[in-house]
């Protein structure tokens, strides 16, 4: 059972658990985040980017920077709103087809999958019956 602290309507995320997952993968993920040159060459390798009118939010690097990048930046200040946003990115903007290609060798799918793991650990999951 996932441990969450209930405060009224807002469930606070279990920061310790998130931090332990983040720290376990810290060095590799930090390295990936550091070497991303923000060149945007990964954009066309994403089929979602190509089919959604080339909207930059579907670009692999945009997804990674705004999900796992923000989680590493906020650390102890991670709140439920942020995790909801990460959920939106990790599930609705990425299908983990592993076709994205980074010219600098960043393993984008593993980063998105880590974002999913963190959301899953806090019981924040997409509801597929919802209309997107």
């Amino acid at each position, binding site marked *: 059972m996932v441990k969450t602290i209930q405060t009224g309507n807002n469930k606070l995320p279990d920061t310790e658990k998130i931090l332990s997952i983040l720290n376990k993968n810290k*060095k*590799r993920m930090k390295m990936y985040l550091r070497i991303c040159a923000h060149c945007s060459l990964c954009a066309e390798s994403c089929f979602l980017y190509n089919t959604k009118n080339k909207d*930059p939010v579907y670009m692999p*690097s945009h997804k990674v920077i705004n999900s796992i990048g923000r989680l590493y930046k906020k650390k102890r200040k991670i709140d439920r709103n942020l995790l909801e946003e990460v959920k939106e990115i990790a599930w609705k903007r990425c299908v*983990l087809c*592993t076709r994205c290609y980074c*010219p600098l*060798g960043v393993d984008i*799918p593993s980063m998105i999958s880590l974002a999913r*793991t963190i959301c899953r650990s806090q019981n924040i999951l997409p509801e597929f019956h919802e209309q997107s």
Partner: protein
Amino acid sequence: MYEFIRGPMAWVSFLIFISGSAYQIIGFFRNTSKQEEFAFSKPSYVQHTRGQPVNKKLLSFKDIKYSIKYSMIGFDPFFSVITIIFHICILILPFLLYEHNAIFEILWGFPLSPFTLPENVSDILTFTIIACIFYFILRRIFIRRVRSITTFYDYYILFIVAAPFITGFLLLHNIFSYKTIAIFHILSVELLFISLPFSKLSHMFFFILNRFYIRNEFSFGKGDRIW
């Protein structure tokens, strides 16, 4: 001031560059030496084609054409060509510049490289680099997808790469005061050396190293760093 920048500070920046690079590379090997438990495992239908015995059929003209079409060169040919030119120029110009070789010969008794570039060619290379950086800046401002992930830090990185070449050009053509520009030129190179291992510019070595570790079919190895 000039002597300090030319002497001890240059050595310090070299030392930081070498030890920082060693730290990053050793750290890379240490982080990837044991296979971590992944939340994500590759689907059984995704197969690695690299790192396996080369199938001669794979190297047919049609396949090369296919792989170019679906690589960076196929997606964005203009930018790919510009980055390739930019990186080649940036790597060869400092080593083949006549003035650098002359200074080395005076200081250490041997030149950096056996041949040097004529002055007009090195000028053309410098202009190419500055033009490429200018194009990168324009790209960051005007292309929507690049603008969406651009931060101030990206401009700073472009600036520290451009600064040695701009000051070097001014120095070669004796524009402004020679000594002041020389100080700025040496300082900018030292800044570049110091920040190289710890910033985005570390893609210089991770560009190659990461390819053995990434888990998809574009990796050089099997993606598990097995050597």
